[in-house]
């Protein structure tokens, strides 16, 4: 394993361990609720990084993969009475199928046109959900969805402790998966296409094939995150198609830093913690968060991850400078 892989997995393991221990030192249920949602947003944002960051595909259908995961779980678990755990996996499958459908029309498009078509896809999905009310519940949505349980133990018990750990586990698995994807030769090929498309083609890489695979790969955990969201809140409502969700996830992605995976994960969790802390500030909360996002991106366009990387490099080179300084007077 190379050094940068070790750093990545060490950072991830430390973060996951800290988050796993957090409930044991006692945090209240509302904070836990915020963190569960943050984990879900983190999965969606970091998987979006695969297309938007690594793949350089301006794909705005990504939130729709999540939303279809929500409805996929609802229809499988509630209407079709499929075992909820299986419905969770199938929610991932639904998102992958959606990704394969939307990728075909954008295969030959570039730039702004990709945004237009993919954004429209989300709106089409919303219209289908609203119009097919006999299946989706229309504007009312679907309620009282079956939740997750192991044997007789419901995940909602003990202050939703089960959901906390299940979502954290899903986030860890998704993060490992993403890292493995981007470090594989497939992952390198999509970065190659992003960096220089014609050169990549001239080295045997197919644009169409890699675009299809990138979109599908980004949808797997996104759909499952949608399923988890539906299982946790026990509701599938058209509200998830709203701009709010897109803004939260996109903020996490950009604030965290594209093409980093861990950046969006950290940013999603940080945003959740900050909004919890600033709960009493009411509308001021959004203002402060917006200023923070603009501030970070103004001075660190690479996002939080670049900021942390910069600090780490500064700390290492600072220590080296101290060591050099200590030796030099002896010479």
């Amino acid at each position, binding site marked *: 394993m190379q050094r940068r892989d070790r750093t990545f997995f060490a950072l991830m393991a430390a973060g996951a361990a800290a988050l796993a221990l957090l409930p044991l030192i006692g945090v209240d249920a509302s904070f836990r609720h915020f963190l569960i949602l943050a984990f879900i947003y983190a999965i969606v944002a970091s998987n979006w990084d695969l297309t938007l960051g690594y793949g350089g595909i301006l794909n705005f259908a990504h939130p729709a993969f999540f939303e279809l995961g929500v409805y996929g779980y609802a229809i499988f678990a509630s209407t079709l009475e499929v075992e909820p755990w299986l419905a969770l996996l199938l929610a991932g499958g639904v998102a992958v199928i959606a990704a394969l459908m939307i990728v075909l029309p954008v295969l030959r498009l570039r730039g702004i046109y990709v945004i237009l078509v993919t954004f429209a896809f989300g709106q089409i999905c919303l219209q289908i959900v609203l119009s097919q009310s006999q299946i989706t519940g229309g504007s009312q949505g679907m309620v009282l969805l079956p939740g997750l349980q192991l044997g007789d133990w419901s995940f909602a018990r003990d202050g939703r402790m089960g959901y906390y750990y299940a979502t954290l586990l899903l986030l860890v698995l998704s993060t490992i998966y993403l890292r493995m994807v981007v470090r594989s030769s497939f992952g390198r090929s999509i970065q190659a296409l992003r960096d220089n498309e014609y050169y*990549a083609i001239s*080295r*045997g*890489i*197919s644009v169409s094939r890699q675009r299809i695979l990138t979109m599908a790969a980004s949808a797997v955990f996104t759909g499952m995150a949608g399923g988890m969201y539906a299982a946790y809140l026990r509701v599938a409502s058209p509200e998830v198609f709203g701009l709010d969700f897109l803004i939260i996830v996109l903020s996490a992605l950009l604030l965290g830093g594209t093409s980093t995976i861990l950046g969006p994960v950290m940013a999603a969790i940080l945003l959740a913690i900050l909004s919890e802390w600033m709960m009493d500030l009411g509308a001021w909360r959004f203002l402060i968060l917006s200023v923070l996002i603009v501030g970070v991106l103004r001075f660190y366009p690479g996002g939080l991850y670049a900021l942390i990387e910069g600090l780490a490099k500064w700390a290492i080179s600072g220590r080296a400078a101290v060591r050099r300084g200590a030796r030099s007077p002896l010479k």
Partner: protein
Amino acid sequence: MSQSEPSVLRVEHARKAFGSLIAVNDVSFSVEQGEIFGIAGPNGSGKSTLFNIISGVPFAADAGRFILAGQDVTGLRAHLRFRRGLARTFQTETAFDCLSVEENIDLARVYGPDNPEEAYGVAEALELSKISRHTAEMNAGEISVFDKKKLMIATAVVARPKLLMLDEPAAGLTKTEIDELREVIVELNRAGISIVLVEHVLPLLLSVAQRVLVLNQGEEVMTGPPDEMIKDPRVIEAYLGRKGHDRVSAA
């Protein structure tokens, strides 16, 4: 030419137009196995366009046929032409900057020939392109212009192509670097790779090419050995114009 060994590349009546401008007009030639074949011509003569339509990157020909070692690759998409053994470099040095030099080469190896056993190993490609071990471990975004040019050759060579097409590899290099590049080209050729070389630096082109095709305004002026080429009045006229030709003749 024997039946068992067809030309490594046969171009038949290639044509490419951009609106009313005909960049390549009915050009035909063939490159034999093991040959270094040069393409020369003044600026705007259609050399790069010809290169582009043969490789399919970034655009295909309007008409004509391209036959690679007996296989018709005319209708083949560009990335598949590379996998069949037709590799090219670009005028501007280019690399996948987010990957290391070794990862750049390995990527071309993985997406290279249809049969992976035909490819060279990364270490062999580094050696053939004269890239140092130290450079190999660096990020491609951090290496020098000359190393990037060699890296572009290495990512092409790793697939052990039937034909390597070099698009002005000497542009922007110092004399020492051009000398090293010449060695790389000659050694690659010795390793059995046929080469097409487009080059503005004529001393390099004339010293390595066995035959040269000279283009002017998209059309073939002549094809022949380098010593014939430099004496050919049509070539002198293409480069220097009518008056230039008269002055050279008078001298």
